[in-house]
């Protein structure tokens, strides 16, 4: 842990504060101690004063009482001595010069007092004896020397008299007189007997003792009991009181300083504590309110606390977890090595963070971002671990969403181009490995642009969603349906075994889409063109297959939309189908499987049935109905178109005769192959007219617009010859072939057939409607009739009638039917209003 400069400064400030508080506390303590010493000193003075006074009383006691006991006097003297010793040591501690000097002086005085007491004891003890025995001694001498002449009785009497005076007042005069009689008495001693001399000596000894000791005793007694002696400690007392007062002020100052510092420290401490408490509260709030799960454990990974977010994240109650080891929360999804690495890192760096899989109480596995920190003690030992958990499941869901968006079309949620590429490549690998066939179908909605343009993009989007939903019903789990964008879909069937499978699937898709969609109150019909590319026939990589499918799809468009197409040419399978179909087709002609169906054409201007269009239908005994879009190209490619065409032409002409009563025209489609063999065609038409006896003007030869563009001069010549036969010329699918109007003007054309794609959308699409109107106008201007194909609704019919379209044809009136059924239709025709 590194201390910041700031915290070092803060720490030293605290240290300084604490030290100053301690210092002032110490000073205060010392001050109080000194103060206590002043108190002690004053107590000692009182003791000394008492001792001094007691000493005086004891002195008087000893002086006055007949029998003295000096123990009391000595006791008081010792009290004085002990008191002064105490005072001396106190003064040393107080350290005051004036006091020390005074105590030293008092010590001198005390020694003097001790000396006085010594003198007093000595003199007091002897003087009593002498005073008592001096008269006895005088008396004894006089009595004992009653018979001795030399005894100076008179002088002895005078000595006694002088002694009495001296005892009354030990004045110098009385002393002189005492001395005089003392010498007088002493003068006779040599004349005395030794016994008498001895007695005289005793008298003189007592007298001398009295003479010398009495004034001394009086003096010492007076000194020991004087007022001066009692006042001895007054000065010390005064000194102490004064210095104590001065010191008291210093004490108060120090005390105030200490109180202030203590107060400052108290305030700072309380602030720090409050801040600490706030920080703790804040930390607790963060802990409780954190959206991250937080877990605190001890060094043994025993759980000490978890926050509410953690409990919520894991579905546990806090109480369930406290005290448990963290191991109980493991999911078992992380390897032992993972945990080993975690602990190694945590031990080495003090922290670890990473993704970990954990378990909710209900067993649910949750991905979490875990970040663990070790809390270390002073000696670097681990005290706690703090683990912060972030729930990653939500993030994962978001990531999933983003990934989904990156690989899916936002509108339909179908796999987009990227994912398609991925899936296709995988499927290709799989197919290559398993030697399977693999097909890629490109589905393009026909004329989708018209819907967008007429109904708006929202409707277009809804249609795309509808189409997707329809298609979804047809696909299996192993299939992939993808939207490349716009109206282009790619379908990857999971498993197909043959081209027939693929085609059947594609046809099924077309069939599914054939049902009308209800979008924004409009009923829309959708057809699609499907191009199918197959691995390994059409290519071995995705891009090639997609390209091939694309061209096949255009092929399908070209051959009439609502159609399925394979890439042309090089497909062996395709050839096989061609060959198969050829054979079947040949049989079909032989077995009369090819039938002619008719669809009535109504004159929109006079409400009458104008004619019929003849259409080829192949109903195979096993395969069922086979679309002309499929077998006509085969027929064209194999030359079977000629017998089929001839058959239809003849059949149609004969049938037209059968409907002579209604004077119907009959329109027969002529393929490009037939048209190119112009002579043969003309011959056949002529023959059919001859054989049936049909009026040539009742026969309409339908040519596709694109056919007209192939070889203009050839076409012109053929058309001229056809006109010579007297038949009418009709241009099928007009509007889709980009034919030049100038060119059209020069040709002998009787009828323009408006392509059903325009008719279908004319209610929704203004452009289509405009085109339809333009075609009608153009046809009128050129003196041609117009036939609108694929009329399904009343609205379409209404529009066409209002805009002067000559003839109409479509499911609105009747779908292509057998001749018998059409006859029934003709017989029951009651006008457009009743369709």
């Amino acid at each position, binding site marked *: 842990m590194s201390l910041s400069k700031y915290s070092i400064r803060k720490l030293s400030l605290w240290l300084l504060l604490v030290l100053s508080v301690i210092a002032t506390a110490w000073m205060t303590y010392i001050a109080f101690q000194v103060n206590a010493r002043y108190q002690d000193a004053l107590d000692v003075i009182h003791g000394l004063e008492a001792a001094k006074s007691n000493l005086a009383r004891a002195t008087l006691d000893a002086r006055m009482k007949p029998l*003295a006991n*000096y123990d009391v006097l000595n006791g008081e003297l010792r009290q004085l001595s002990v008191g002064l010793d105490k005072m001396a040591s106190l003064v040393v501690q107080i350290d005051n010069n004036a006091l020390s000097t005074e105590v030293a002086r008092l010590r001198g005085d005390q020694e003097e007092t001790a000396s006085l007491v010594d003198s007093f004891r*000595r003199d007091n003890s002897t003087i*009593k004896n002498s005073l008592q025995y001096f008269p006895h001694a005088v008396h004894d001498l006089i009595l004992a020397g009653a018979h001795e002449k030399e005894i100076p009785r008179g002088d002895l009497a005078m000595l006694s008299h002088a002694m009495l005076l001296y005892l009354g007042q030990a004045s110098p005069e009385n002393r002189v007189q005492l001395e005089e009689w003392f010498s007088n008495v002493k003068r006779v001693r040599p004349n005395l007997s030794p016994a008498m001399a001895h007695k005289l000596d005793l008298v003189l000894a007592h007298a001398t003792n009295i003479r010398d000791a009495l004034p001394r005793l009086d003096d010492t007694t007076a000194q020991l009991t004087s007022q001066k002696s009692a006042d001895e400690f007054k000065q010390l007392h005064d000194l102490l009181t004064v210095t104590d007062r001065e010191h008291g002020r210093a004490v108060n100052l120090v005390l105030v300083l200490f109180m202030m510092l203590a107060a400052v420290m108290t305030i700072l401490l*309380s602030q720090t504590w409050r801040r600490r408490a706030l920080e703790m509260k804040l930390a607790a709030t963060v802990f409780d309110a954190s959206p991250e799960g937080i877990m605190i454990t001890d060094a043994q990974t025993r759980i000490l606390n978890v926050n509410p977010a953690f409990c919520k994240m894991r579905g546990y109650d806090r109480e369930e977890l406290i005290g448990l080891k963290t191991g109980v929360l493991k999911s078992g999804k992380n390897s032992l090595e993972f945990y080993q690495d975690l602990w190694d890192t945590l031990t080495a760096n003090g922290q670890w963070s990473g993704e970990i899989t954990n378990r909710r109480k209900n067993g649910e596995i949750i991905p979490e971002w875990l970040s663990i920190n070790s809390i270390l003690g002073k000696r670097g030992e681990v005290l706690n671990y703090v683990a912060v958990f972030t729930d990653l499941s939500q993030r994962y869901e978001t990531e999933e969403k983003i990934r989904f968006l990156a690989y899916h079309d936002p509108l339909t949620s179908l796999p987009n181009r990227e994912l398609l590429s991925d899936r296709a490549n995988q499927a290709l690998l799989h197919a290559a490995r398993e030697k399977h066939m693999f097909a890629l179908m490109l589905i393009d909605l026909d004329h989708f642009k018209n819907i967008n343009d007429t109904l708006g993009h929202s409707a277009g989007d809804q249609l795309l969603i509808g189409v997707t939903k329809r298609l979804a019903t047809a696909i299996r789990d192993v299939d992939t349906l993808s939207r490349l964008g716009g109206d282009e879909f790619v379908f990857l069937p999971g498993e197909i075994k043959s081209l027939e499978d693929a085609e059947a699937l594609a046809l099924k898709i077309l069939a599914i889409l054939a049902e009308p969609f209800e979008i924004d109150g409009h009923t829309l019909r959708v057809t699609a063109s499907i191009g199918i590319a197959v691995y390994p026939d059409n290519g071995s990589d995705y891009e090639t297959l997609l390209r091939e499918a694309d061209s096949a799809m255009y092929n399908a468009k070209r051959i009439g939309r609502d159609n399925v197409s394979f890439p042309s040419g090089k497909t062996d399978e395709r050839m096989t189908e061609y060959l198969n179909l050829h054979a079947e087709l040949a049989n079909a002609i032989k077995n009369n499987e090819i039938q002619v169906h008719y669809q009535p054409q109504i004159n929109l201007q006079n409400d009458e049935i104008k004619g019929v269009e003849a259409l080829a239908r192949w109903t195979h005994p096993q395969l069922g109905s086979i679309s002309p879009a499929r077998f006509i190209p085969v027929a064209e490619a194999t030359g079977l178109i000629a017998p089929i065409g001839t058959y239809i032409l003849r059949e149609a002409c004969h049938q037209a005769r059968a409907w002579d009563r209604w004077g119907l025209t009959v329109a027969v489609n002529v393929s490009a192959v037939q048209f190119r063999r112009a002579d043969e065609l003309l011959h056949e038409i002529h023959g059919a007219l001859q054989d049936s006896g049909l009026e040539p003007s009742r026969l309409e030869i339908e040519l596709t617009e694109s056919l007209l563009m192939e070889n203009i001069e050839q076409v012109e010549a053929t058309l001229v010859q056809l006109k010579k036969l007297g038949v009418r010329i009709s241009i099928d699918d007009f509007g889709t072939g980009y034919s030049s109007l100038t060119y059209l003007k020069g040709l002998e054309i009787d009828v323009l057939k408006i392509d059903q794609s325009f008719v279908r959308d004319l209610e929704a699409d203004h452009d289509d409607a405009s085109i339809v109107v333009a075609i009608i106008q153009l046809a009128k201007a050129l003196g041609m009739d117009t036939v609108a194909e694929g009329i399904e609704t009343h609205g379409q019919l209404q529009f066409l009638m209002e805009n002067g379209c000559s003839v109409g044809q479509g499911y609105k009136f009747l779908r292509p039917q057998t001749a018998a059924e059409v006859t029934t239709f003709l017989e029951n025709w009651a006008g457009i209003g009743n369709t």
Partner: protein
Amino acid sequence: MKKNSELAKSTAIVILFIVFVASCGKPNSPSELTIPIGAVDVSGPITPLPDHVSVNPAKVVLGQRLFNDTRLSADGSIACVTCHDLRAAGVDHLPTARGIKGQVVGRNAPTVFNSALNFRQMWDGRAVSLEEQAGMPINNPKEMASSWVHVTAVLKSDPWYSRQFSDIYNAPANAANISDALATFERSLITPNAPFDRFLLGDKSAISSSALEGWRLFRERGCIACHQGINIGGNMFQKFGVMGNFFHDRNKDDKLDQGRYNVTHEERDRHVFKVPSLRNVAKTAPYFHDGSVNNLHEAVLIMGRYQLGQDLSTQEVENIEAFLKSLTGCYQGQCL
């Protein structure tokens, strides 16, 4: 509320701190000789001894061992007890004491019993306390001829002493604590229960009629002027020869006879001695500072003549002797 409790907390810490600092030093009281006074009339000239004294028993044990330990002398030949034989009333019964190697000491060894009650120690009072006195014979070349250095070295080498000093004084042996131990032991040497003490306490049959007569004479003749107090003497100085020059009369006036003069060098202190205690006096012959008088009778006579200026009759002296004999007390239940 919270704020208040924090303030209280910090204030409490400061107060505790002050209390801690203030409690950092308290003096402990020394053991002192205490004499319970009780019902005894302290105002009388003589007061009886108490039954016992309170002193630190551990120090007494240590002091007694030291008192008996000959290793305190330079050659290990004598101990305190050599001259202050507790079985012989605390004296050696010699006129003057003998030091190591038979050296003659100038003065008579006073009894160690009741010495704690003397206001000074030594005949001339030159030791103010028992503690001060204790070191004097040890360091005196004529007596134990030892030194504190020698004594402390001896005691430090002895495990028992080392432990005792360590236990009692929390320090190794030194001049101060050795003196203290010896003085403490000596304070325990009290001889209560003397017949006269019993008499003072109300037992009128405790002393003989002769002793009673002696007690009367003791007071009336004036002996009591100096021999008073609890120790019957020992609480004052007095000149030997108030009523006559004793030293001149006996034709012997040596330096050691100058008494307190040797301490103060003041003329008034010539021949001045501490008035000796008369307790157990019958058991502590010979008498006076130089042990020059062998019997009590003669000592009483000399005292009467030179201190009181009176010639006492034989009968009077005998009665006073009887009184003095009633002053013999007992130590640890054993009468001297």
